């Protein structure tokens, strides 16, 4: 019972934190884009514009809700719901920190430790494309449909390369549980040292999965007027945009867990001993470091967005199918050969 209660609290906390991070990612995006372009960014709502996300949220809620006459109403409403739900679902598998002790019992800061965690994450995140596809289709608008088609084609193509990159990782770690993958990197070096190519492929595919520049074909404001969410207004649009930022947060967390050691950091045990930290404090320190790493990746996503122009559609497909997938297969081969030479295969 206590266990269950703790899990519920953890899930709620996770939900709140995801929303909060997504909220301030919008603020961060606007600020970072401003700084990269020698501007100031939002600075009117609250000190340094810190209340800007709230103002945006209020604006979204107050806007008129328009559902086009020609649209399929049920699907039109279902689209953003799916996008939001799937975005929030992947977070439960990520080990957000070590163990904490409460009232003499030890709890893990991970909601669920599935032994097929990697598969679950892939299943859930690839559901996200349904939100986009259904939304674009239900809008009954050619731009939306084009955006949706591009989005689904892009996400499916890049998922292959992403999955192949992960296979190499699973080969070298020998587990599909995210907790074990993270904990293995405590004793040894972080995974990106062993899997540099895999890390790179995974990172590039994450950009494509998130529909972020330079892979923001589905949205491409200049050609498709927003793509799949052209017809959306009010908070339904807000849900789509919000889902995108939550996805960014979650996928940063996944990248960090897979390749950068999750909540572990170099000399963690030494530092904990030197400072004489209790279990709870060292867990808190690990979680803080984990979030710092995540924020770095969120910054990276924004940094790249404001640096690179968009791919052309054929270039995008060429990179996906003709470069990344062969490279990912090569990565699997090389990983296999190295493991065989080290006698890890039996």
């Amino acid at each position, binding site marked *: 019972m206590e266990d269950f209660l703790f899990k519920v609290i953890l899930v709620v906390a996770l939900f709140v934190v995801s929303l909060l991070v997504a909220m301030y990612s919008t603020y961060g995006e606007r600020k970072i884009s401003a700084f*990269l372009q*020698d501007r100031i960014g939002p600075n009117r709502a609250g000190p340094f514009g810190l209340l800007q996300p709230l103002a945006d949220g209020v604006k979204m809620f107050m806007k008129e809700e328009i559902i086009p006459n020609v649209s399929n109403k049920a699907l039109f409403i279902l689209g953003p719901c799916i996008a939001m739900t799937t975005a929030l679902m992947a977070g439960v598998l990520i080990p957000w920190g070590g163990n904490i002790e409460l009232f003499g019992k030890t709890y893990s800061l991970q909601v669920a430790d599935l032994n097929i965690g990697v598969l679950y994450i892939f299943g859930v995140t690839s559901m996200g494309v349904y939100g986009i596809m259904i939304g674009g289709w239900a809008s009954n608008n050619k731009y939306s449909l084009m955006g949706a088609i591009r989005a689904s084609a892009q996400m499916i193509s890049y998922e292959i390369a992403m999955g192949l990159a992960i296979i190499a990782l699973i080969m070298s770690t020998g587990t599909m549980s995210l907790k074990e993958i993270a904990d293995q990197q405590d004793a040894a070096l972080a995974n990106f040292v062993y899997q540099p190519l895999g890390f790179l492929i995974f990172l590039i595919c994450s950009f494509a999965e998130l529909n972020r520049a330079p892979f923001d074909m589905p949205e491409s404001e200049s050609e498709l007027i927003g793509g799949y969410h052209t017809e959306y207004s009010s908070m339904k649009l807000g849900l789509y945009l919000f889902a995108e930022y939550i996805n960014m947060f979650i996928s940063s967390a996944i990248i960090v867990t897979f390749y950068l050691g999750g909540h572990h950091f170099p000399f963690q045990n030494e530092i904990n001993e030197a400072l004489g930290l209790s279990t709870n404090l060292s867990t808190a320190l690990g979680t803080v470091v984990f979030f710092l790493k995540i924020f770095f990746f969120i910054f990276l996503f924004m*940094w790249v967005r404001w640096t690179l122009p968009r791919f052309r559609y054929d270039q995008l497909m060429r990179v996906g199918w003709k470069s990344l997938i062969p490279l990912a297969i090569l990565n699997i081969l090389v990983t296999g050969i190295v493991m065989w030479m080290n006698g890890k295969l039996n």
Partner: protein
Amino acid sequence: MQPLTNRSKLVVKKEMTFIEKLYLPAIFTGMIITFKHLFKKSATIRYPEQKREFSPVYRGLHVLKRDDKGAERCTACGLCAVSCPAEAITMTAAERKKGEENLFREEKYAAKYEINMLRCIFCGLCEEACPKEAIFLTDRIVPSEFERNDFVFGKDKLVEKVDDRVDVTKRQTSAVLDFKQNKKLSHNK
């Protein structure tokens, strides 16, 4: 053919090398360039708090001047309205009554004087045309409004307050003064 400038470059379409085909070095260079911009000073002027420094002859919001005693200089001659290329100025003249000598400088004055700020092109011809040195363009900015009607500025907004004079000496450069002097002389003949 002779090139117009020395800046033209010969474009060569050569095969990209392997490193170039990877794109990663180029992306990395680009990202370093954008990263450097993080620390650059922004060019923004936070407008209501900070104001851009105007040139002394900047032509902004008009002012209807009073003379030293606080009487309005404008005599509603209508030259400004005639000279205005955008037809932004309208006025109604009225005769000065007894006891109003401290309010209006001459026997005739403008009972109504309106400038439509949406029509105005801030060319400054009204200022040039004015024989009484009553209207000037200042370095103030026309404030933004929500309603179209609010952009028609009447005397309440145009005439300077007695206790809050608007300094227009900045606009009186030697060239302007020269010009006004000549005009005055020819006008008096």
